[in-house]
């Protein structure tokens, strides 16, 4: 028998979970391997449950969940646990804890190259590109999720996009002609 959803908190949580769980799962899955994504997802909704009294209403609630997901993912990567410290140590030696999204999806070469460029960005820039392109958030929404001003978000996104182009051109300077660049070949 399914438990009843009785209290106000439970009904609020149930509405949030029922409506936005797929988006939050997708957020986690875009950043972590499947089994890790499930753990992060569980932590996101556990935190949401603990904080449900401060959940905003309406469309803002998805932004609120994204913010929790962002913090949870960040915390997950470098938290307090021995496991994460070990992970940090492994990463310093070149072993990546967070499987590259390039490794997770079977894609054609030009997409693989673009995702490799994305992986090569600094984490803050990588995240803002993901929020913009994959989660399709507006600058205002991104600034809320990252807790920075819209101006700072605009600047960071602009810088991230320029760095993508810089890295692309570094990688392809010797291999591609100007015509190929304009044509978008890799």
């Amino acid at each position, binding site marked *: 028998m399914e438990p009843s959803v009785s209290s106000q908190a439970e009904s609020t949580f149930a509405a949030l979970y029922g409506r936005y769980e797929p988006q939050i799962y997708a957020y986690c899955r875009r950043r972590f391997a499947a089994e890790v994504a499930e753990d992060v997802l569980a932590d996101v909704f556990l935190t949401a449950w603990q904080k449900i009294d401060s959940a905003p209403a309406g469309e803002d609630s998805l932004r609120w969940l994204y913010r929790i997901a962002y913090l949870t993912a*960040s915390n997950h990567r470098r938290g307090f646990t021995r496991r994460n410290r070990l992970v940090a140590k492994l990463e310093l030696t070149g072993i990546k804890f967070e499987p590259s999204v390039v490794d997770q999806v079977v894609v054609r070469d030009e997409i693989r190259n673009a995702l490799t460029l994305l992986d090569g960005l600094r984490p803050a820039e990588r995240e803002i590109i993901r929020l913009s392109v*994959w989660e399709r958030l507006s600058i205002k929404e991104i600034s809320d999720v990252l807790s920075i001003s819209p101006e700072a978000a605009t600047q960071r996104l602009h810088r991230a996009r320029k760095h993508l182009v810089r890295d692309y051109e570094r990688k392809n300077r010797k291999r591609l002609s100007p015509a190929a660049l304009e044509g*978008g070949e890799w």
Partner: protein
Amino acid sequence: MSVEDRVIALIDEGNPIPDPNDLDRDRLDAAAYLATLEPRSSAVTQVDTRREDQKAKRTYWPWLTAAMVIVLVGLAVVLANQGDDNPAADASPEEVLVDYTAVRNSGDIDGVIEFYAEDAVVENHPLDDDGIANGTAEIRALEEQVPGHQGSGDGIEIIDMVVSGNTVTFDYMFFQRGAEADSSVIQGCLGARDNQVTVEDGKITLYVWGPDSEILCLDWLDSVFAPGT
């Protein structure tokens, strides 16, 4: 299409989960998911227990670290009194970093600046909008804004170091305790990985702050441990 737009379009195309609603996966409905969660009072107790664990850890290690720092600073003072103009010149890069961190945490801004070469460069400082500070005057202007220099009990703890030549790559956590608060209580933290310090002749010539230097931990802890939860 510009290169920039082309790269962005390809990243968009490479979205591992283009449409969350198309995912074929089993998931609990809301009521069943709620049943897997502990009542909120228990959940909060669980979180508070974690905080107690952290407090217990952090009340022990700062004293041990402080004791080590006192020994190191004492050694440095002894060496300084032996007539050498720059005794730190013989210190290894990691020793310089450890000493530097201890002085940072003590709130001695002059001492902090002493560790830098006159023409040192600091990149990606979280309080620096421009991203680069050149020379000790600009570095001082930045460092004076750092809460850890206000004698508040705030401080950095290095959690990992890797030395390569005269460069140390390290991770750190910055714990905020606050001027008024019990120094054993962690109010918040931030952390950064892959910070790099280059040391030449005992002086820091380049300090590159690692990525993710935003106050993530602080926000995170605030979100979890806010009063009333």
